[in-house]
């Protein structure tokens, strides 16, 4: 393993980290306010598809914006069902995932090439030349955003209001916070970030949409959230670890000697996720009202 190999491994892991970090950090905001969205997987898939469709009509930035919009719309549906209509959050998430699986597969067939859709190279987000090789500018966003949100959640009035809505909605309601509205905003913000992560996958990283593009990333970022205990900085670290093992799996698969079958290597990120989560848990604590709809007495 030469220095070059290490550098390329690092580069791939940073790229693989971006969607996980963005999604996980967005979900942290949502979970702080008390909404547990397991539909992230579906949001990633839908926004990757939406972004890829929009990119040829206005460039990569428009594609990313459309991806964010897709994430916002889907999570708005999720949030309305689970705030004003007091729905079951798990079931809504499962519904979003099923819908996304069906819709993207359906849409891909309608585009003519069953199974995958290439984003033309001209409409992909340009990668920057750095000493480490070509890097997507989105890596910078994914590295900075967790710090901003860390500050926002701990040091601002709005962040503390979010926390109150997740910890003890009754008290927050008495204090004059509109629980439903604040949860809705938090969930939509999380959806926007997940949408950005999804559009990044198709426009700025892989350049292709397949019907299983998200490949469990939504759930891996949920695992990041669990691992982090709602701390955006730890979530970034978790996203990097999982990104690294995804990159490692891809790297082992391309080795000419094929020491391990590809099917076994592909399990690696999921196994590591499980191991890390089962090792990290126990010390983390979650908002008291996480996952329960708020009903006024």
């Amino acid at each position, binding site marked *: 393993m030469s220095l070059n190999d290490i550098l390329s491994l690092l580069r791939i892991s940073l790229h693989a980290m971006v969607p996980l970090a963005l999604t996980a950090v967005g979900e942290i905001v949502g979970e702080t306010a008390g909404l547990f969205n397991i539909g992230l997987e579906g949001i990633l898939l839908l926004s990757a598809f939406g972004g890829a469709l929009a990119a040829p009509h206005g460039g990569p930035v428009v594609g990313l914006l459309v991806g964010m919009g897709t994430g916002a719309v889907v999570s708005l549906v999720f949030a309305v*069902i689970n705030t004003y209509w007091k729905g079951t959050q*798990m*079931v*809504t998430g499962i519904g979003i995932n*099923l819908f996304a699986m069906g*819709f993207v597969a359906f849409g891909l067939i309608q585009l003519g090439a069953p199974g995958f859709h290439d984003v033309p190279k001209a409409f992909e987000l340009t990668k920057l030349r750095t000493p480490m090789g070509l890097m997507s500018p989105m890596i910078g966003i994914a590295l900075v955003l967790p710090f901003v949100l860390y500050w926002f959640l701990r040091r601002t009035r709005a962040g503390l209001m979010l926390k109150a809505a997740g910890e003890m909605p009754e008290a927050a309601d008495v204090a004059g916070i509109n629980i439903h509205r604040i949860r809705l905003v938090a969930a939509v913000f999380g959806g926007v970030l997940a949408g950005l992560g999804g559009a990044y996958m198709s426009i700025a990283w892989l350049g292709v949409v397949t019907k299983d593009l998200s490949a469990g990333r939504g759930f891996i970022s*949920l695992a990041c959230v669990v691992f982090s205990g709602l701390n955006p900085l730890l979530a970034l670290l978790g996203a990097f670890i999982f990104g690294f093992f995804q990159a490692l799996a891809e790297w082992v698969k391309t080795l000419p000697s094929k020491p391990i079958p590809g099917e076994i290597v592909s*399990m690696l990120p999921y196994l590591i996720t499980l191991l890390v989560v089962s090792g990290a848990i126990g010390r983390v604590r979650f908002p008291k009202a996480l996952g329960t709809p708020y009903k006024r007495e």
Partner: protein
Amino acid sequence: MSSVESSAQSRWLRGIRRTVTGLHPVSESLLAAVVGLLVGAVLMYIYGFDPWRAYVGLIKGAFGGSYELASTISRATPLVLTALTFSICLRAGMFNIGAEGQMYMGGIASVLVAYFVLPRGLHQIVGLLFAAFAGAAWSLVPAFLKLTRGVHEVISTIMFNWIARWLALYLAIFVVVDPRRPEKTLSIPISARFPVLVRGTDLSYAVFVSVAFALAMYFLLWHTAIGYEVRAAGLNPSAARYGGIRSKRTMLLSFVLGGVAAGLAGASIVMGLPPTYAIYGGGGLPQLMNLGFDGMAVAMVGRNHPIGILVAAVFFGGLNAGGRVMQFYGANPVPLEMVRVVMGAIVLTMSVPELIRLFPMIRRRGEDLFGILRRARRTERRESA
């Protein structure tokens, strides 16, 4: 006299209202199905298809004759079992999303009977036992992770789905592979296959396995003490613990039962679906793919009740079977994937509690107004008296 009349009338009204309330779960499922089909219709319209013709094709393909009906029931067979996986655990208060992976493991395990020579009957039972054991073992790990390390079962079961998928692919391609046809696993020997029930269709005796399991689960959950404990632990964990129910035991039991159901679902495909009686490793396990996820939709529409699940599974089996016909019906080729869009929309709708009461907001507003008026009249009367 007038008061007697009015009380008789109100008893009638109350009876009707109670019946309607009792039927709420059913009407909510129906409403969700309608909403799902409408969402599908809108999407088809946007993409330039004729939704009406597509649904006509779908219904004809699902329930249009004895052949279509048989293939609908054949599609429903594994869905009943994977739906039970989800709903048994939900009744115990947990979200077991792992039916998909547990089903892969069950399917692979039942292929192992190809290495044995056993008399007919015993061979099938051995295959089912293998599948049940593999499914249960695969679902016990998340259960133990939850018990010992507090890992949320949604995350662990999803990770296990992906691990199971790659493991099953690996086993299908390298281990239990048919040496003469490397694209598939060994075929189940004839003595271990479920015979075909209706000639010329792919409906086999496996359907009895899934119906029997559903009825057994109904009996277990609603007519035994242990089933009562499982449901009590799901309804209110702290009250159940206070009442002396060991929640760890009910949790493990529900996960084992769920795993058994999912494993049997895999076996029902491998041992009971003509013509291959094998798993295709190439193309990513096409016969098994997504049965676990579809099962969750079935469980929701079946209101997590075994009998409801049987009905809902026929509906979704019909969607799947009819979807195949819809693809080729009347120059209006709507892809099969539309069926899963409809399923997702149905589950989304089902996640809204008391759907029936939510939609006619106006009615509730009206009732509020009515109540205020009545109260006002009562106080008026009291004041005059």
